[in-house]
């Protein structure tokens, strides 16, 4: 469980070593994230979503307010190791987070750093590589992997560390469509099978329609939250905060306005195909 209370974060803008000004990146956020939840955070560039992500494993500390991860306050230094163990992070650019000379070594890095016994490391690494579907590439050099494969290795690394919570900051924005859906599938599997908490930060809206809950951010504030059905029923809000509306949801709105008796919203392509076929057959 993550508990965020009245979080405020101010960045200092430095100019020629003279402090120039403060910029508020997060402006009073309170949010609880339950263990096992699949939470998506949506917002445009500059909405504060990445800044929020970096608070979840204490890469950034609050200027005001508190964040607790399983009752551990992130601002207390003695909690740091435990919090970093609990919360794994995956960033946008896969090339910046792979360090091993092959996939196994990379996934083992965190465990070796913690001086774990080597037979445990070996067993754990094999398991985690298998979980993300990369067993065929155990001995492969990361330079031979595609962007999506590298992101899966980064996820395996976080798994090996026994993270219970995984925070992903735009993990798919540099990937091609097939790799994108591979990553999203792995995340849903980890969530369903391992009960892992997934916090997915993205501006690819079609990746969030299967989340448990969506949080909308704008100007450092939470401006909306709810289930995908609730959030995608208010398209005006999404447009106002410059969040892209998935094609099928947009099409559904337009067709409803043209008199088609469709559900509000129609969340995905299968549902849309079924409803339209139904309408067609009735005539």
């Amino acid at each position, binding site marked *: 469980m993550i508990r965020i209370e009245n979080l405020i974060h101010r960045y200092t803008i430095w100019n020629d070593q003279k402090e120039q000004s403060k910029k508020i990146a997060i402006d009073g956020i309170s949010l609880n994230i339950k263990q096992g939840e699949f939470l998506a955070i949506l917002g445009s560039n500059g909405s504060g979503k990445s800044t929020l992500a970096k608070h979840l494993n204490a890469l950034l500390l609050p200027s005001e307010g508190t964040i607790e991860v399983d009752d551990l306050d992130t601002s207390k230094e003695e909690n740091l190791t435990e919090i970093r163990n609990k919360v794994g992070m995956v960033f946008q650019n896969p090339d910046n987070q792979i360090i091993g000379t092959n996939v196994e070594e990379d996934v083992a890095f965190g465990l070796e750093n913690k001086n774990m016994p080597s037979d445990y490391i070996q067993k754990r690494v094999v398991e985690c590589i298998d979980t993300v579907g990369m067993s065929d590439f155990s001995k492969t050099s990361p330079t031979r992997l595609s962007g999506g494969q590298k992101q899966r290795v980064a996820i395996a690394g976080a798994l090996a560390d026994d993270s219970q919570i995984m925070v992903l900051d735009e993990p798919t924005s540099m990937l091609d469509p097939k790799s994108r859906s591979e990553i999203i599938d792995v995340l849903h599997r980890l969530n369903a099978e391992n009960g892992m908490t997934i916090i997915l930060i993205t*501006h690819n809206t079609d990746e969030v329609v299967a989340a448990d809950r969506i949080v909308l951010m704008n100007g450092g504030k939470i401006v909306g939250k709810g289930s995908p059905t609730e959030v995608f029923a208010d398209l005006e809000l999404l447009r106002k905060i410059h969040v892209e509306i998935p094609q099928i949801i947009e099409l559904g709105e337009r067709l409803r306005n043209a008199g088609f008796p469709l559900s509000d919203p129609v969340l995905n392509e299968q549902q849309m195909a079924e409803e339209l076929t139904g309408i067609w057959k009735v005539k």
Partner: protein
Amino acid sequence: MLKGVNINFSYDKKGVSENILNDVSFEINTGDFIGIIGTSGSGKTTFIKHFNGLLRASSGELYLNDQNVYDKSFDLFQLRKEVGLVFQYPENQLFKKTVIEDVMFGPMNLGMLEEEARIVAERELKFVGIDEDLFSANPMELSGGQKRSVAIAGVLAMSPKIIVLDEPAAGLDFYTKSRIFDLLKRIIAIKKMAVVFVSHNMEDVANYANQVWIMKQGTLISKESVQTSFSRDDIIDLAGMDVPEVTKLTKDLIDAGIPLKSISTTVDNAEKSLSDLFKKNRGH
């Protein structure tokens, strides 16, 4: 304008040559808006680096206005001037203290005098939609979308005939992205140039490009209109890509026996063809 014939490119790796591009032929003409798609590692970036001579083909020919670029007598400077390349995350390459100086850098490098370069830079900054009061700002103070527009202005200031962009929308949110693509549309319409962009976003390609070039392991496996390319399941699948959701929807509906005339590649088009068809059906 720019034409490649049987371009091959290979790296030498420990004495073994590895082919990155295989017999690629293409042509780019004024008014073209071309989207190049393909998975990571399919050779897209290597391919476009040939357009302005950053890479030289191992074999094959490249023609600029019917002149062979690989002839000894050809001045590569000419190619660099006519074909402007915008890399991924071009904002990381802004390095001057002010926005205007950054845009002036290119034309001055081509030998333009400072006075003249300033006039050109002002014109191009206005064209890409940067407010005059930002001309003397530090580029680092601009938003992501503004920085990218400045980088594009820097290329336009060299008056190229073709602008080539590697993932122009990477990392931008939806709103900023549509502004960049609208700018590219204006570049074609007003400046009578050609725009070529590499993308992994099929929706962007469907919304903006009029031609799709599909790369797979260094081979250009298809050069067709968006409509034709996206209806070829076999080619899309082979390339490891995925069509937009509305394209999938219209395909599924056609398979289910609903008599749509063709697949849709954009929301606008899907809305229109579904409304028309269902209205007609109700009329009977």
